[in-house]
């Protein structure tokens, strides 16, 4: 029996990057997936590539009706919602001093409010139908260390850890587990700057494992948390960052220990 036989995943931001890899691996391991994204072209192409175990849904995480539609669509197509992954995010970098309210709101709405709305809609279905579930929300190394000049990104990613813990605590009695993952530098379309060899080299060197992450590294962690292997894991965050978050002291110059 495959790891996710009979399980249905709703994933936001599922068309690209970490979401894309997670969608493919979940299906490869026996599950069915509703790929939710604002990018119709990429989302539909991915669903076509995966085949009968995948459907694409154009959705807007910031709209509660759209989140409810994702749940209804999953139930209509595959009969259930067992797993949720929220990876949808927008970047709007800027200095806090100059950050526009519009940019602040965009990132907060897509990343934080969208995650809340999607999880809330799915949890209500799970609770109403007396089904257990597992949810994973994409935070970031930027959620545990302030990421200067990233605009509202770090604030959203930090809040996503707390939101995941909070949902985990409130829904634990219902059998719904909620956790966050915190990737480090990861090579995705969102981080196209990593295509610059100098940036990639520099970011690899500041990571204790000496490389940037790939979507599969993060998807492996997400799938572990969604699986029954993690059935006592809830309300926590899993760093998948090659040791980056713990490596601040690596940057101290002048350590002449000998």
């Amino acid at each position: 029996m495959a790891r996710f036989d009979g399980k249905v995943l709703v994933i936001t931001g599922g068309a690209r990057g970490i979401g894309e890899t997670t969608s493919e691996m979940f299906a490869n391991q026996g599950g069915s997936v509703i790929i939710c994204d604002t990018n119709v072209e990429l989302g539909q192409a991915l669903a076509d590539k995966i085949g009968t175990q995948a459907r694409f849904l154009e959705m807007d995480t910031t709209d509660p009706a759209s989140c409810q539609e994702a749940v209804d669509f999953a139930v209509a197509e595959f009969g259930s919602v067992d797993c949720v992954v929220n990876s949808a995010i927008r970047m709007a970098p800027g200095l806090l001093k100059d950050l526009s309210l519009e940019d602040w709101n965009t990132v907060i709405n897509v990343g934080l409010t969208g995650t809340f709305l999607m999880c809330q809609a799915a949890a209500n279905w799970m609770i109403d139908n007396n089904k257990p579930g597992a949810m994973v929300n994409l935070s970031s190394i930027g959620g545990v260390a302030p990421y200067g000049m990233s605009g509202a990104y770090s604030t959203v990613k930090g809040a996503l850890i707390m939101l995941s813990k909070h949902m985990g605590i409130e829904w634990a009695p219902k059998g719904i587990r909620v956790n966050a993952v915190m990737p480090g530098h990861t090579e995705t379309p969102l981080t196209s700057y990593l295509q610059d060899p100098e940036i990639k080299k520099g970011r690899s060197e500041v990571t204790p494992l000496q490389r940037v992450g790939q979507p599969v590294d993060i998807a492996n962690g997400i799938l572990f948390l969604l699986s029954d292997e993690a059935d006592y894991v809830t309300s926590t965050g899993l760093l998948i960052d090659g040791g980056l978050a713990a490596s601040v002291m690596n940057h101290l110059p002048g350590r002449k220990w000998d």
Partner: protein
Amino acid sequence: MMLTKKTIVVTGGASGIGRATCVLAAKEGANVAIADINPDMAEETKALVEVQGGKAVVIEMDTSKAADATRMVQETVAAFGTIDGIVCSAIKLKPAKLEELAEEDWDMVIDIGLKGYFLCAQAAGKVMLEKGAGSVVFISSVGGVQAYNGAGAYSIAKAGAIMLGNLVGVEWGGRGVRGNTVAPGQIPTPMTAAMFADPEIAAGRAAVVPMGRVGEAEEIAEACVWLLSDRSSYVNAACLQVDGGQAESKMMHTPGRNWGGKKMNYKAS
């Protein structure tokens, strides 16, 4: 299988979480070195490993002794040729109020639970660093992130284990050896069997966990095996809590949450 042909050392492998980890690692294809101070129970673990079709050796040792840690590595390499991962779980619990905690009891818990982790990881680490691949997993505890009152030096050793895991990850990660920690919640094991035998304590301890139950040794073993495996190949210097939400449940215990008269009970449906 996740650990095919890998050789894994488990300190404290004779019982509890250590034993469950030995058995699951074997089920996933690993050879297992069961390092423990109790050879009789370690032999029982060995039999359980062999039921899974795995190979095991028993190494009788005291993890707090450097010479024993060195011998542990020598005997493992003699049996299986290499070391691909180590799980350190050996611990002794000596509860006491801080004002009454004896120096020898402090030393014993720190020697086994912290120094022993260091010595065993160091000895096994040398083998793994030489070949540029490996994984170190330390068993910490919810008591390593929340002060465990009345538990003597236990919380201190467990908090230290998290930092030691991070240090291993930061120092050795660039050379292919990852270091991570698992922080279990309350897990009935032989060490805590007497306590959980009291039905009132068992019920009370289940009730304070958001998931409403204590955990099982096998659930911790799952996390250990995952961290040993290549599926976690970018997880380094991290601490994975496997506690049913317990470490984050502080505010559940705040009485008098009236919220302005809005009656709420998330445990009821």
